[in-house]
């Protein structure tokens, strides 16, 4: 049996498990997909069971379990924060100290007990790696590069909030770090909170909001909130933030600076929120670009690997690529804390002499991020029969033909195939698909299918070989983590011809693929490669043959507030709750109009808003 190492992230947010065989990721999943609680932070029991089931292993078959952060080091930072914030932080002290003393400080022992309760045999040695080491390892070791500069940027783990590394072969050398409380991730989260979105999940919304605004607050942010140095290092002015003192990110200081109270969640968006989003996005991009230039100078490497929650800011990633500081950029698809499980396991595997066998093949080690569970036709049929669903069983060619015909006719299709994605993006395994040429599709998908805010953009999947014809993208983007401009040849109007502002910008058709063209002519592109997801590539190819368009709208298979679907049962439920027209579940095709009546009127109340 190969050497098996299990990586875990747990007990903060986005719990996950990853299994490596001889240093190669073979299974990975977030606990939220099984528990159906978004950003679930609990011990990832279901994800662990899935990973072990994938190879028929039990806990004694593992050579190690790797945990993604160092609890002792983190507790020292927590203690320093208590001291630094006294006497104003009793609220956070009262809530956070008891769990630290009762179990978090003895995390490895706690994890050992939780593993033992799985009834899968005795757990092996539990090893901890530092939080940013886990991020850096998840960025570099699976990347296709023999050597690279590595940047990890996030909110905070133990002390580090930003780290730079040099990766060569199976070694990572740390070069520099910034420490808590000076954090780009926390700065972005503070604005996310102030604009009325949830911290640790609403950051995407703020990024999507930015193109509607004007960055008129950048001067005040630079003067009062953050002192940025030439090398990208920075300090925040904690006088204006509340996160040291309690559960809130901002308070009266922000209200004084930005002209009023925090936006109430779900209240109408105003020019202020658009401009705040544009401003903090602009500052974030500036810091990331400067850090990247420093990483280039320190390492001399022409390639960069990114991870950490800030690496999910695909707009900043796109600007970084456009700046030309690096010839190529590779972003870990599970760049947030879920990917820490992968990084911790990889760091341990490499320190024990594992080899990066994928290097030199031109491919990365992520298998297209399709590392989650798959369901065969027997599983699917059993679920559908139990649910009383009406379906047809089709061969693959017929299934693709019928899905393409439906998409071309303006229908919305649930697409459930092969192994589930690892990371926050749906990449054509658990996706909702639509025709990007329809100017009404963006609004229809947001309001009738996803039940989410009207301003949120949708992303395109494009055949990798045709990406250049549609987008100004200098490299492949298989994980939908780079934003690029829609090609000028496809634009139907220029920036200067519009006087609309705010959400009125949504009413303007900007290109021949309007459903995936954001108000600033950009798109969060996924390039689809046959080696990563063959059936999805064949679907796109067939859509191109039928319509001459190589692009589909690809959004995650879920509704607002819900994790992406994992099982056929989840998919059927989501299909029936929304106005999706068609569902392709493996080789089974379901039409909404043929399904029996579905009674689940209160389902919206069961899913908390994100």
């Amino acid at each position, binding site marked *: 049996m190969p050497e098996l190492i299990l990586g875990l992230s747990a007990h903060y947010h986005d719990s996950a498990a990853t299994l490596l065989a001889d240093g190669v990721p073979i299974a990975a999943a977030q606990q939220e997909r099984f528990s159906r609680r978004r950003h679930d932070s609990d011990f990832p029991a279901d994800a662990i069971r899935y990973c072990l089931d994938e190879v028929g292993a039990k806990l004694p078959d593992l050579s190690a379990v790797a945990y993604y952060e160092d609890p002792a080091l983190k507790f020292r930072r927590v203690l320093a924060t208590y*001291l*630094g914030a006294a006497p104003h932080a009793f609220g956070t002290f009262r809530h956070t100290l008891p769990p630290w003393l009762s179990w978090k400080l003895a995390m490895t022992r706690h994890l*050992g007990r939780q593993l033992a309760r799985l009834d899968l045999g005795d757990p092996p040695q*539990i090893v901890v790696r530092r939080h940013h080491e886990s991020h850096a390892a998840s960025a570099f070791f699976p990347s296709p590069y023999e050597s690279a500069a590595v940047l990890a940027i996030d909110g905070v783990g133990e002390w580090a909030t930003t780290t730079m590394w040099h990766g060569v072969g199976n070694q990572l050398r740390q070069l520099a770090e910034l420490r808590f409380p*000076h954090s780009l991730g926390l700065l972005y989260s503070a604005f996310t909170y102030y604009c009325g979105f949830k911290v640790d999940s609403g950051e995407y919304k703020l990024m999507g909001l930015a193109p509607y605004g004007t960055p008129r607050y950048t001067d005040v942010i630079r003067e009062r909130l953050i002192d940025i*140095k030439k090398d*990208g290092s920075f300090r925040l*002015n904690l006088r204006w933030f509340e996160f040291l003192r309690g559960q809130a990110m901002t308070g009266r200081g922000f209200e004084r600076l930005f002209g009023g109270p925090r936006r109430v969640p779900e209240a109408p968006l105003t020019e202020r929120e658009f401009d705040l989003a544009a401003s903090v996005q602009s500052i974030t991009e500036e810091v990331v670009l400067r850090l990247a230039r420093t990483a280039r100078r320190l390492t001399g490497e022409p390639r960069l690997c990114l991870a950490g929650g800030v690496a999910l800011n695909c707009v900043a990633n796109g600007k970084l690529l456009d700046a030309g500081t690096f010839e190529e950029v590779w972003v870990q698809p599970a760049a947030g804390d879920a990917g820490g499980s992968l990084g911790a396991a990889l760091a341990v595997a490499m*320190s024990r002499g594992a080899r990066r066998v994928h290097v030199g093949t031109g491919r990365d080690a992520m298998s297209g991020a399709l590392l989650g569970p798959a369901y065969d036709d027997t599983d699917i049929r059993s679920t559908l029969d139990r649910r009383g669903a009406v379906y047809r069983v089709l061969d693959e060619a017929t299934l693709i033909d019928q899905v393409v015909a439906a998409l071309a006719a303006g229908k919305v299709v649930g697409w459930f195939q092969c192994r589930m994605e690892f990371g926050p993006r749906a990449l054509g395994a658990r996706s909702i698909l639509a025709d990007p040429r329809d100017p009404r599709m963006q609004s229809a998908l947001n309001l009738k299918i996803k039940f989410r805010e009207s301003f949120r953009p949708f992303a395109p999947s494009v055949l990798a070989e045709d990406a250049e014809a549609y987008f100004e993208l200098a490299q492949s983007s298989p994980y939908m983590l780079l934003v690029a401009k829609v090609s000028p040849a496809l634009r139907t109007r220029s920036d200067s011809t519009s006087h609309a502002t705010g959400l009125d910008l949504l009413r303007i058709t900007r290109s021949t693929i309007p459903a995936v063209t954001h108000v600033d002519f950009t798109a969060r592109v996924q390039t689809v490669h046959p080696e990563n997801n063959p059936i999805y590539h064949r679907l796109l190819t067939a859509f191109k043959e039928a319509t001459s368009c190589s692009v589909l709208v690809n959004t995650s298979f879920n509704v607002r507030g819900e994790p992406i679907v994992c099982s056929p049962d989840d998919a059927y439920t989501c299909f029936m709750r929304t106005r999706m027209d068609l569902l392709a579940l493996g080789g089974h095709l379901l039409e909404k109009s043929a399904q029996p009546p579905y009674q689940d009127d209160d389902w919206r109340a069961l899913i908390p808003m994100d």
Partner: protein
Amino acid sequence: MSTALLALAYYFIVTPVGLLSRIVHDPLRRGWNRRASTYMHYLANRSPRTDHGASAQKGV
């Protein structure tokens, strides 16, 4: 752990220690220095980590 006990610990231990320690050294290094060229902690010649067993503990 009771709120009263936590309040006693916070206001009679953490707060005085925190206030006194900040006179000497702010554990969070909050000050700005406009004239400084960097806030980065550069780690010269740091070797790749190989101490994976340093914080290890046998499960259970």
